[in-house]
């Protein structure tokens, strides 16, 4: 029983860590977006305001995939262990001794 609970907790923590690998993608994407925005402002300094607004919008949308991973990681850390341990305890108590 203790071993099973330990496995559940460990697997949840590992899963959360693995889910956050998705943070690489938005990092690269946002870096590209900001680099291009800097180039655009360097070329046309008078369009700084609209370029900055568009860049922030684009960054926010590029961030979405990373935030999906974050939500999954948070669920795995704070919500999933309780539910899984409850399921384990219930099934163990229903098994014939």
């Amino acid at each position, binding site marked *: 029983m203790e071993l099973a609970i330990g496995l559940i907790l460990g697997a949840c923590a590992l899963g959360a860590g693995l889910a956050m690998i998705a943070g690489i993608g938005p990092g690269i994407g946002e870096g590209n977006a900001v680099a291009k925005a800097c180039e655009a402002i360097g070329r046309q300094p008078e369009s700084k305001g609209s370029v900055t607004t568009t860049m922030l*919008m684009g960054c*926010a949308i590029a961030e*979405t995939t990373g*935030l999906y991973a*974050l*939500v999954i990681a948070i669920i795995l850390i*704070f919500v999933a262990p309780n539910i899984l341990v409850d399921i384990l305890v219930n099934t163990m108590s229903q098994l014939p001794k």
Partner: protein
Amino acid sequence: MTKTSRSFRLLDMFYIVMMIVPLAIGMAIQVLTKPATEGITLTGARIFFTIPMPLMDFPVTESQINSLLVTVTIFFFCLYMVHGIHERVHLKRQHFAELIVEKVDGLVHENMGEYFMGYSPFIIAMLALSALSSLSSLIGLYPPTSDINVVGGWAILVFILITYYKLKCGPLYYLKSFTEPVALLAPINFLSEFATPISMSFRHYGNILSGTVISTLLAVALSGLSNLVLGWLPGFLGEISWLRVGIPAVLSIYFDVFSGCLQAFIFAMLTMMNVSGAFPKEDYEERKRKKLLKKDAKKQIA
């Protein structure tokens, strides 16, 4: 600048007090009901009490109470800003109020067009509520935007608006829009309809919540480090975690102030873009013109 009367100043004072009182109530609730725990913990919104309902119990949580308090604060702030508003400007705050209205009108006009100008009060209300909800974590309240139920409610509201504007050309036109560009893509179009509110709510809630999680982790790490490094100090001096003074504030500038305001702005921008993008303007106008023509033809026959 003319001298203001006594009753005018009294009403001003009342508005300012009513702006501060809700936040003070929130802090008092926080102090009175928070259970004393050892160390730093990371919890969701606490449930104060539940109201029994026919289908399901209705829990009243911290985030609901806090967002109501923030709403009251914004309400009295608006009353304060428009108090004594006059054609001939004699108060400084009127300039500020006009600036806000002009900026928001310009933003809505730029992003949504002339047809949607009635949306600017809604947009500024959403911006103010979202920004102030996120900023309420600065005075120690639980920020309502780090609860998915609050942000999810706003996203569902936006989803209803989007569907309303898509239905403007009639239900048949709405159903037909799923089969664009090919009929084979209908299931994917149907799914992407629901992806909009989900991604909007996850984006806002994830940003605020990740800031809270990182701040808490930093606080735990700094208190441990402080015990390790400065634990040799005599008496009670050694028990105070000195490193937690000031250092978390630097991160708080980014995660609470900048991120909160940016997410509010992005939520408002996405609302504007989604709602105005859902409205098929040309088709709607053509439909209207055809209806008018039909009516005129009927009148002439009669």
